[in-house]
């Protein structure tokens, strides 16, 4: 597993139709909004969660046993099937009372072992409770919040249920619920991958390919009542020739534009066809190559 040797930046577009891409716990699960601009938001941790879930799915066998080197440390119960859980219960490793590794070498060894075995530690990093710097892994991948290209307007949809949960509500016959959806929103996210930090965690080219696959397919395995239809639309990757990079990231991001092409600019967009995403390939700086994965 040799680490990657190039710096990368990527621009990732995904859209949502009649769904809630990321609820805001502060606003009763309304889709997140930037209060100043009314643009929709999807947090970095939301996207990372989906990447983890995709990797957990792709890299595990029928019984849910993960492939060596691709275990996910931060797991969601819903992605583990029951057999998987039983396996864990059967093999439960009893935690010892808290002991800190005495020396740095020991801490480094622990960190290296975690990086070798766990994809998400290798990619995003993790914090270990050691008081030594080596106990903190800074992963090579850094993602920023995704924002919608245009302002979005969440709708509140009231729904009824023909059953009740509690016996005392029997005479009510039905209960009401709420869903919040965005009729349509195209979101744009930016990501950064540092080759120098990858050296330290051993994030390899194979891992990178897996990351691109995860970004391309993660919504395909994340269907739910709340999400509506979500789809990855474009993944534009800038690869620098050298590890430190050949151009400022913000200059590269500016080369990618999403414009309204169908309908008036101030009317609501309702499908991906209303937008055109263009990459100004002519102006890409020397030493940077562009590749479109989607």
């Amino acid at each position, binding site marked *: 597993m040799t680490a990657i040797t190039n710096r990368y930046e990527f621009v990732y577009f995904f859209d949502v139709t009649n769904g809630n891409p990321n609820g*805001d*716990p*502060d606003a009763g699960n309304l889709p*997140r909004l*930037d*209060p*100043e601009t009314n643009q929709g*938001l999807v*947090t*970095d*941790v939301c996207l990372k969660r989906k990447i983890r879930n995709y990797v957990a799915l792709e890299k595990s066998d029928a019984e849910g046993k*993960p492939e060596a080197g691709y*275990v*996910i*440390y*931060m*797991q*969601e*119960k819903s992605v583990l099937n029951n057999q998987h859980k039983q*396996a*864990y219960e059967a*093999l*439960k*490793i009893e*935690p*010892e009372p*808290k*002991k*800190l*590794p005495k020396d740095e070498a020991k*801490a480094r*060894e*622990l960190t290296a*072992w*975690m990086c070798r*075995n*766990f994809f998400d530690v290798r990619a995003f990093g*993790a*914090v*270990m*409770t050691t008081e030594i710097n080596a106990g903190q892994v*800074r992963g*090579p991948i*850094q993602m*920023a*919040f995704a*924002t919608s290209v245009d302002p979005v307007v969440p709708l509140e949809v009231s729904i009824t249920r023909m059953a009740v949960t509690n016996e005392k509500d029997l005479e009510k016959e039905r209960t009401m619920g709420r869903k919040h959806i965005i009729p349509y929103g195209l979101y744009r996210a930016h990501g*950064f991958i*540092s080759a*120098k*930090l990858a050296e330290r965690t051993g994030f390899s080219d194979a891992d990178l390919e897996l990351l691109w696959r995860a970004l391309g397919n993660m919504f395909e395995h994340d269907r739910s009542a709340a999400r509506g239809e979500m789809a990855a639309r474009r993944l534009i990757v800038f690869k620098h020739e*050298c590890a*430190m*990079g*050949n*151009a*400022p*990231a*913000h*200059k590269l991001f500016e080369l990618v534009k999403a414009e309204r092409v169908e309908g008036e600019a101030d009317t609501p967009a309702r499908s991906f066809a209303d937008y055109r995403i263009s990459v100004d390939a002519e102006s890409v700086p020397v030493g940077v190559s562009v590749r479109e994965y989607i």
Partner: protein
Amino acid sequence: MAYGIRLLVWGERACFTRPEMKVERVSYDVITPSAARGILEAIHWKPAIRWVVDRIRVLKPIRFESIRRNEVGGKLSAASVTKAMKAGRTDGLVSLIEDDRQQRAATVLRDVAYVIEAHFELTPRAEACDSEGKHLDIFNRRARKGQCFHAPCLGVREFPACFELIEEDSSQPEPHADLLGERDLGWMLHDIDFANQMTPHFFRAFMRDGVIDVPPFTGVEVKA
């Protein structure tokens, strides 16, 4: 100050967490010298040099926004890793996010831009081949090209920082008119003293017409 650099940094959001409010994070009004140093180190750093932030220019009005996220409460324990290593298996070594969930709000800054003015000093670990000029050239070359060791960030990694070198002969960007006058920003983290059990040092930050002069780390204005 013969070796000074000026770096323009800006971004959509920023969170320079106040140490007294770090569970539900609340950002300081402006970037701390410590975060500014981190940005410079993301571009160029060697054990031979130490960055010293001299001045911070705030270019945009100070505005806040609140974001609540599902976060994980616990940290990975070294003891359980050791155990799993000995056992040679990874099962049982996972963290289930539903069992360890904390919803935390963060009050973060919106739409920020700063000019960091800094210089560096050589440390005892500098060798004969380490001259200030050499490291200054490396930094300037990298900042000009947009090269970095890892993408610098505005306090936390989800808020990446764009950066641009301000050349020696170019003019100073002017702070926004809202920032004119003097403002007392109160006690603010200067930096952490890593040599002495990670002791935080604080200084009284005054913003005069958008400019904060940062006292030297070992100066009398700085309290540990």
